């Protein structure tokens, strides 16, 4: 596979999400809401915020620690998807050259500060997202979304996609391998051949969809998705939700970095 996501083998995240840590066992709704609140808190900070972003690492670090998800795994994934944000952000130092901060002799421009801020935001939001997926399976997330009010047709769609994803990715990989074994250059296919491969995969996908539909009919499918209510929002879920929401509000508005900084430097101004 030579796609943009080559470094991502789908399987690892999926396997990690089947773990049994205390974080894995939390209700997916609690995790989804907390992660969402985290992302909103992080991106709502000012574009020059650097110091204020650092305390937010508390969240991914603690989740990482309690879930047993390997740090290197998350760090590598974050690095893999970073290019776009870096590419767009790297122009900030060019266009924003007002000096806003002096550390001794050095003057730091607003552009560098906001670029650093973009990188931190990126690490925080993507890290949190990866941790959510590494500790919560897609079926559980779908169920959570349904309980939180997402339309059942759409949830069914996500669950169906997840179910057949691995199968079709495997199919396309086999087809491509067969192509490469016979191709002269052995590289990525030219668009014309690629289109033919896609056409074949599509035909097979449609045929499979027909068989799946038959199987669904045979088990009484009438268009309604009925999921067993296996989610239970327990005390620990409430605690998790309440504590982290409170923490994010505190981190966002009390700015512990400033307070701590003022404390250790004997107060400024």
């Amino acid at each position: 596979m030579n796609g943009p996501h080559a470094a991502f083998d789908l399987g690892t995240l999926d396997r990690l999400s089947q773990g049994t840590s205390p974080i894995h066992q939390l209700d997916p709704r609690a995790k989804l809401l907390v992660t969402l609140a985290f992302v909103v808190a992080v991106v709502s900070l000012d574009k020059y915020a650097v110091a204020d972003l650092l305390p937010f690492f508390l969240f991914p670090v603690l989740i990482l620690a309690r879930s047993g998800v390997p740090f290197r795994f998350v760090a590598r994934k974050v690095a893999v998807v970073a290019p776009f944000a870096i590419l767009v952000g790297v122009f900030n130092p060019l266009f924003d050259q007002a000096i806003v901060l002096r550390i001794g002799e050095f003057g730091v421009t607003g552009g560098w500060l906001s670029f650093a801020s973009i990188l931190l935001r990126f690490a925080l939001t993507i890290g949190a997202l990866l941790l959510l997926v590494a500790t919560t399976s897609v079926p559980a997330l779908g169920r959570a979304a349904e309980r939180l009010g997402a339309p059942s047709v759409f949830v069914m769609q996500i669950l169906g996609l997840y179910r057949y994803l691995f199968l079709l990715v495997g199919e396309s990989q086999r087809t491509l391998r067969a192509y490469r074994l016979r191709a002269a250059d052995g590289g990525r296919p030219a668009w014309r051949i690629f289109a033919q491969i896609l056409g074949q995969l599509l035909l097979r996908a449609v045929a499979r969809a027909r068989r799946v539909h038959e199987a669904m009919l045979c088990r009484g499918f009438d268009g309604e998705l009925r999921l067993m209510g296996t989610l239970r929002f327990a005390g620990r879920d409430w605690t998790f939700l309440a504590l982290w929401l409170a923490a994010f509000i505190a981190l966002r508005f009390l700015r512990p970095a400033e307070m701590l900084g003022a404390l250790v430097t004997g107060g400024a101004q």
Partner: protein
Amino acid sequence: MSHHRIALEAVGFTYPDGTAALADVSLEVTHGESVAIVGANGAGKSTLLLHLNGVLLATRGRVVVGDLPVTKDTLPHVRRTVGTVFQDPDDQLFMPTVFDDVAFGPLNLGMPEAECRDRVQACLEQVGAWHLRNRPPHRLSGGEKRRVAIAAVLAMSPDILLLDEPSTGLDPRGRRQVIELLRGFTHTKIVVTHDLDLVLRLCPRTVILSEGRVAADGPSKRLLADAALLERCGLEGPPEALVCPRCGDGSRL
């Protein structure tokens, strides 16, 4: 009056594109029977199977399940009575986890959740797959998938089981496990397959289809030992069916 009976009365079926798949098939399977339907590719086996569970409706003749003919109106009854285990478990296991998949049928039948939970557990235990309940289907082996697919069908408590190629794609051990599992069921069973060895182990009676018609219908041991008949229908007998020429009683060599 038994729900376990299934009958085809001069059934014919032509696909919308004009392919005549079934010419004239008459067949009756009664309570507790285990019948194999064999035939070369294109003989009409799959089309026949889809008539038994009402996915296709006969263009001529009629199919009777229990006491009711299969029509659009009787489909709910038909689908409760006849459980189909499809050839490719990946087509059948469409829910994201094993548990959800087995619960899919009972929930569609309107079963209350508590009862459904018990039913799912009972069925998964019956096929020895309860420990797999939280797995997504793409993390199962071929044999596990097959057993879970069978559990998903059992959960609808059908009277009649239709099995399409139940041994395809399984390694020898998975195949043996599935055969043993199926032998333990008291349901009326109709097995569509190319695996003639499985037929001998599972089904006392065999129906051979050829070109959309019933070419032969009788005891499996006799039919599968009839080389001329098999040859005529484009089949090859299993080594196990080679009958001792001297005693001719079907005992294996």
